[in-house]
């Protein structure tokens, strides 16, 4: 039976990867262009006037945050749009009638989101190398944070798609929740620049822990404890996976 599950998991994963590679102009090119613009505007033009931050040039400081921003956005949108399309076109029924356990469905879709996020991470890192020398302080922390963050947001995208009834429903969370959390999550600044009260408020934003964990992997500096970052990511992943599992098992949004 385990072999059957493995075949099913591989099938869903390959299908998901094929999907985002087939529409690469929509999925891979925009983040590369957007991030290049960020590097040019915030890094080269404005950054040179800002000076250093956390002991690094502004450009060096924002690179990990920008990569993380691309990872968060893409892992989320990959799964939310793919699963919602499957609901919309009704081809999710192919999975519902097949003997595929719920956890395999979740892992297959989330795996697709993680694959896209990783590829985007590599692309944006390559783009950043045109502007700055990329430091690597701790490769293990980089990979761990990347996997845990992309898994978390891919699962969140799945939950969004489970509930979504229209295409508007899958764009609302990225616009009204993800973007503010990311921009206020320490991508462009160190929390130490904020007044103490706002530092405390910022620490309620989960994205702060992801960006800083990732930044620690590259630069060796962080506004928060990296251990707490990783522990929180594992905890959030467990919670969101459980929610997605219960919803799919019940058939919320997919079975009448």
């Amino acid at each position: 039976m385990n072999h059957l599950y493995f075949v099913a998991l591989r099938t869903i994963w390959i299908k998901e990867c094929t999907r985002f590679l087939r529409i690469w102009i929509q999925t891979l090119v925009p983040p590369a262009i957007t991030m290049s613009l960020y590097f040019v505007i915030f890094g080269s033009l404005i950054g040179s006037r800002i000076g250093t931050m956390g002991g690094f040039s502004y450009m060096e400081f924002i690179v990990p945050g920008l990569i993380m921003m691309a990872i968060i956005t893409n892992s989320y949108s990959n799964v939310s749009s793919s699963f919602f399309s499957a609901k919309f076109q009704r081809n999710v029924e192919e999975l519902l009638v097949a003997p595929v356990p719920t956890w395999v469905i979740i892992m297959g879709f989330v795996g697709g989101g993680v694959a896209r996020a990783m590829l985007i991470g590599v692309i944006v890192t390559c783009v950043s190398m045109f502007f700055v020398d990329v430091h690597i302080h701790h490769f293990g922390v980089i990979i761990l944070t990347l996997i845990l963050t992309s898994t978390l947001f891919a699962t969140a995208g799945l939950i969004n798609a489970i509930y979504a009834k229209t295409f508007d429903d899958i764009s609302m969370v990225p616009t009204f929740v993800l973007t503010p959390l990311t921009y206020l999550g320490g991508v462009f600044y160190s929390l130490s620049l904020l007044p103490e009260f706002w530092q405390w408020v910022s620490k309620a934003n989960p994205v702060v822990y992801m960006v800083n964990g990732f930044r620690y992997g590259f630069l060796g500096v962080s506004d928060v404890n990296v251990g707490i970052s990783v522990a929180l990511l594992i905890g959030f992943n467990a919670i969101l996976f459980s929610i997605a599992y219960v919803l799919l098992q019940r058939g919320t949004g997919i079975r009448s």
Partner: protein
Amino acid sequence: MFALDISGLTKTYKGGVQALRGVDLQVKEGDFFALLGPNGAGKSTTIGVIASLVNKSSGDVNVFGHSIDTALESAKSCIGLVPQEFNFNQFETLQQIMLNQAGYYGVPRSVAKERAEVYLKQLDLWEKRNAAARELSGGMKRRLMIARALMHEPKMLILDEPTAGVDIEIRRSMWKFLKQINDQGITIILTTHYLEEAEMLCRNIAIIDKGNIVENTSMKSLLSKLNVETFVLDIAPVKSAPELNGFTSRLIDDHTLEVDVEKSEGLNPVFTQLSTQGVQVMSMRNKSNRLEELFVRLVESGRQAQGDAA
């Protein structure tokens, strides 16, 4: 063992619509079974519950002895579903759709490729294997759904109006194919609004209306219940209606005569009387499909009984 054994199945949708009100149904292994009913009768809901697309409210469903409550994955492995609506990814190629379907059932890629070739060729889709599904005609899409449902070699195939909107030539080729796979031992459950299709293909039949099974019998015994058939005779033009003693007849126009004939009487006396009166019969046909007449009667009498009870 029954291929399908349903008892006391009920389904009430959110909002209170009671789609199934205690359905009991058994389908023998190897059968070609028709599940008929008017629109909204509960056919698709019943199929949805069997295939895990609809959550049941109560009752038991067993597929080849596997309960959908306790052995869902084993039950699902036995079923191939051809739903009413197209439900494949319109942007994927036929080959991808076939291979993905096999993968969901754990069929290894190499085996899946061989099967995809076999079924796409059998259903005349092989030439289109690299085309996106959205480029196919309606008939091709219907055949693709049948091919896809066979990829894991199910023991039971459930077809929900598989020939809807398909031209007669393709419909007949689909009938031939379905007969072939039924002869190979696959149990087939068919819902259709083409009653000629059910009469031609199916050995046993159930009629469902308003969530209740109103008839469940063999096709032969059902058809034997039809005592009176109406025939339409094309005749050489006449000025007045011919006299047919012992029969009810109606002259529709100067060359069309309708005659109600009881099974016990047969058609010979009709021809004898017409011949005596010099009426020349050019051709003859049933006014409607025999099963269609029975279907309408059964559904109407079921509704009348429910109305009386209420």
